[in-house]
C-alpha cells in the first residue's frame, strides 16, 4: 500500500518559502467554494465579485491601496519583531494610541494653517505607538512577562481609552453629543492624490518605510542581531548580543509603525476620531507579516492581498448580500492554510513504496 509521509529536508526549501503563500491562497479558495455553496451562492461568480470587481474601477484601485497602506506599514514593524522572536500581538492598540496622539495634536492646533502640523502629527503618532509598545517591553525585560498577553490586553485598554476620550475630553463640543471629535482642519489632513478619490501621499511614506525596513533587516548589523536572537537565542547569548536591548528595539519599532499607521488613518480617510477607527488592521497585519514571509517586499504583497479581502468582503456584501463576517472567515482561513502549507518549507512529501 502506498502511503504519503513527510521527510525532513536537510535545508529549508527556498522555493517553498515563496510558494507556500501561493499554495495557501489556492487552498483558501478551494475551501471557500463549499462554504459559498452552503450560503446558496454561485462560487465562481462570488469569487469574481470578491477578487476582481473591487479592482475594476479607478476608485476601486485607490481604495485598495488606501486600505493596504496601514496593513503594510503595521506588517513591516511586526515582521521586524517576529524575526527577533518578539510576538507583538497588540499592534491594534498601538495603532489606536498613535491615532489618539496624532488626533490630539490636530485638535490642539485646529485654527489657522500650519505646514508643520502633519509632520508633528506623524511624530505624535509614532511616539504614541512607541509609548504603548514600551509597556510590554518594560514588563518583559524586567519581569519576564509574556509580550503576547500584555500587548494583546493593552489593545482593549487602548480601545476603551479612545472610547472614553471621544465621549469626554476630546468630544466635539458642537457635535450634537455624538461620540466623536471635531473634524480635523485642512492642515491636519492629507489631501487626495487624485481629486475625488481618497488615496493620499502617505502611501509614499510607507514605501520609504519598506526600504528602511529592508535596510534594517538585510543590510544592518542591528537587523542581523535581531535575526540571530530570533532564530537561535542561545547563539545570540553566546555571541554576546544584549537580549533586553533587542526586545526593546523590536517592540519600539513595531509600536512606531503601528502608531504611524494610526496617524495615517486618522489624518487620511477618517479625518476625525470616533470609537471605532479600524476594521482590525492591527490584527490583520499579523497575517500580512506571515504571508509576506517576514520580508519587507513580501509584506507589500501580503498587505495588498489582505486589503483586497477587505474590499471583496464589502463588495460581496453590497452586491450579493453576503454576510460581512465572510471576509473575516476568509482571512482566518488564509492564515490557517498558510500555517499548514509552511510545513512544506521544512519537509517534503514522499510516497512510501
Amino acid at each position, binding site marked *: 500500500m502506498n502511503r504519503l509521509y513527510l521527510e525532513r529536508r*536537510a*535545508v*529549508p526549501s527556498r522555493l517553498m518559502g515563496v510558494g507556500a503563500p501561493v499554495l495557501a491562497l489556492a487552498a483558501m479558495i478551494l475551501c471557500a467554494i463549499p462554504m459559498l455553496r452552503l450560503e446558496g451562492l454561485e462560487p465562481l461568480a462570488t469569487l469574481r465579485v470578491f477578487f476582481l470587481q473591487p479592482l475594476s474601477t479607478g476608485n476601486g484601485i485607490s481604495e485598495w491601496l488606501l486600505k493596504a497602506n496601514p496593513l503594510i506599514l503595521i506588517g513591516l514593524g511586526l515582521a521586524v519583531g517576529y524575526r527577533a522572536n518578539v510576538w507583538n500581538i497588540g499592534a491594534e492598540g498601538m495603532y489606536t494610541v498613535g491615532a489618539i496622539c496624532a488626533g490630539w495634536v490636530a485638535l490642539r492646533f485646529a485654527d489657522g494653517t500650519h505646514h508643520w502640523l502633519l509632520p508633528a502629527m506623524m511624530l505624535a503618532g509614532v511616539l504614541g505607538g512607541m509609548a504603548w509598545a514600551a509597556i510590554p517591553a518594560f514588563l518583559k525585560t524586567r519581569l519576564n512577562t509574556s509580550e503576547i498577553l500584555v500587548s494583546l490586553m493593552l489593545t482593549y485598554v487602548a480601545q476603551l481609552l479612545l472610547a472614553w476620550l471621544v465621549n469626554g475630553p476630546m468630544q466635539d463640543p458642537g457635535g450634537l453629543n455624538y461620540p466623536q471629535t471635531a473634524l480635523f482642519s485642512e492642515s491636519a489632513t492629507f489631501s487626495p492624490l487624485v481629486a475625488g478619490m481618497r488615496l493620499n501621499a502617505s502611501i509614499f511614506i510607507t514605501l520609504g518605510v519598506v526600504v528602511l525596513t529592508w*535596510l534594517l533587516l538585510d*543590510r*544592518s*548589523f*542591528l537587523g*542581523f542581531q535581531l*535575526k*540571530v536572537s530570533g*532564530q*537561535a537565542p*542561545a*547563539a545570540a*547569548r*553566546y*555571541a*554576546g*548580543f*544584549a537580549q533586553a536591548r533587542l526586545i526593546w528595539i523590536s517592540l519600539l519599532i513595531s509600536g512606531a509603525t503601528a502608531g504611524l499607521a494610526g496617524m495615517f488613518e486618522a489624518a487620511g480617510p477618517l479625518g476625525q476620531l470616533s470609537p471605532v477607527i479600524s476594521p482590525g488592521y492591527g490584527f490583520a497585519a499579523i497575517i500580512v507579516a506571515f504571508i509576506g514571509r517576514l520580508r519587507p517586499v513580501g509584506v507589500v504583497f501580503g498587505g495588498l492581498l489582505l486589503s483586497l479581502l477587505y474590499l471583496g468582503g464589502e463588495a460581496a456584501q453590497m452586491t450579493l448580500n453576503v454576510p460581512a463576517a465572510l471576509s473575516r472567515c476568509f482571512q482566518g482561513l488564509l492564515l490557517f492554510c498558510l500555517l499548514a502549507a509552511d510545513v512544506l518549507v521544512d519537509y517534503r512529501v514522499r510516497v*512510501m513504496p
Partner: protein
Amino acid sequence: MRPRLALEAVTKRYGSFAANDSVSLTVAPGEIHAVLGENGAGKSTLMKIIYGAIRADAGEIFWEGREVSIASPSAARDLGIGMVYQHFSLFETVSVVDNIALVNKDRFDRVRLAARITQLSERYGLPVDPHRLVHHLSVGERQRVEILRCLLQSPKLLILDEPTSVLTPPAVARLFEVLRALAAEGCSILYISHKLEEIRQLCDTATILRGGKVVGSVRPAQVSIAELAGLMVGSAIAPVTRPRAVQGAPRLSVSNLSVQPADPFGTALQDVALAVHAGEVVGIAGVSGNGQAELLNALSGERITAADRIRLDGVSVGHLGAGVRRQRGLAYVPEERLGRGAVPGMSLAENALLTGHRGGLVRRGFIGTGPIEAFAHRIIQRFGVKCSGTNAVAASLSGGNLQKFIVGREYSLAPSVLIVSQPTWGVDVAAAAFLRQSLIDLSRQGAAVLVISEELEELLEICDRIAVLFRGRLSQALPREAISIDQLGVLMTGRDLQPSAA
C-alpha cells in the same frame, strides 16, 4: 550457522548524495561486530535503517534467514532488535522503573517490573536502583538504564552507538564485561565507534565504512591500529607535535568561583580555581554533567558572577557580559554547534559575522558583504571546511565540518584566551589532528588555551597541564608529564581529588 542479521546491498540516498551505497554485512549469533567509520561515513544511517527509524531506498534485510521489512523502531523491537543511542532518551523527572514502563508493552505493574529490573541488573552486573529519579543518576548509570531497557525485551541484537563517549575508563571496562557476557549468551552486538583501541579489545569482526561504502572487513585483533585507521581514513595522518611550552603571565584566572546551576538538574560549582598562562594549553577532564556547562557559562560571560572571580589579563571581568569579554580578547568554541556556536538557518558568511563582527566587518552599523565573504572564505580554505561555499547554510554541514568552521572562526579572531569545549567531537580523524595542532600552535603564539574534553587521549595529546572536574570541584592542574591515564581515570571518579582552591 544461519546469520542473525544480513544486509544485502542496502542503499540510502539523500538527493544526489548516497549516505549508504550498496552496503552488505552479516552478523552471526553471539558476535560482537564493530561498524567503524569516520563521521559522515554512513554508520548512523545504516543503524537507523536496521532499527527501522528510516527506510532504505534499495537492498534487502534478512533477519534469521528471512527477508524482512522493518517499518518502525517498534517493529524492530518486536523482531528482537534493541538500540542504545548516543544521546539518551530518558525523562529526568521520573524514576528508572517509570522510564522503562513507558516503553514496555507489558501490562503496567511497577512492582513486578522493578523486581525484574533488579534481577537483570544483578545478573549482568549493571547495578541500578529502579526507584531513583533519573536526574540523580550519573551518565554511566543512565546508560545502564538504557541498556537494561533493551535487555528487558530479551533482544537478539543490540545496537550501541558510540557507547563509551560519555564513560570514565573504569566504566568502559565494566561495560565491556557486560557486553561480553551478553554475547556469550548468544545476543549479537553491533558496536558503532571510531575509537580504534576499544574495537580491537572488544570486537570479533569489524566492517569499515568510508563515504557510505564498505571498504573493508577485518578481524580487529589481528590488525594494528594504524592499519585500522588507514582503512577508515583512506590515507595516513600526520601526528600532532607539541613543542615545549614557555609559560608566560596568567591570561585567564579563576578564583573562588562558586556558581549555583541555572538548570534544576545542573551541578553547582564549588570554589573553583584555575590559571591559564600565555603559551600553554590547559585541559579539564571529566565526564559531562560534573559542572562543565556551568563553568563554561561563567567563563564565557553567558552567566555573570562577582567581578573578581574571573580575570582576563589581570582585569576583573566576572561581572561583564559575553560581548564585553570578547572585546577584551576572549574567544570560545561551545560544545553545542548548531543553535549556539552557529545559527542553523544562516549561511557560513553570516555565521562568520556572528562573533567576527569586531574585525572591521561592520561599518557604521551596516554589514560589509564583501569583507564577510572574504573572512568566511579564509576560514573555509584554511581549515578545510567541506561545503558548497560561503553561502552554504550552517545546518547543511556535517557536525565535523561545522566544528572546523567554528574553531576556525574563533582561531581567526586571534584571541588572547581561547576556550574550547569538546574540540573534536564528531570530527574525522584527520581533521581532529589538524584542529588539535591548531590549538597548540595558537598557544605557542602567546594565547592561553583552555580545553574541556571528555576524551582523555585527546587531552593527553595536546595539553601541558590537566585538571579534573568532578561534581563541581576542580582538581589541581597537573603537568602532562606527571600524569597517567589511569590516574586521570581515578580522579574522574572523585577519589584522591585535591581541591584546586587549596
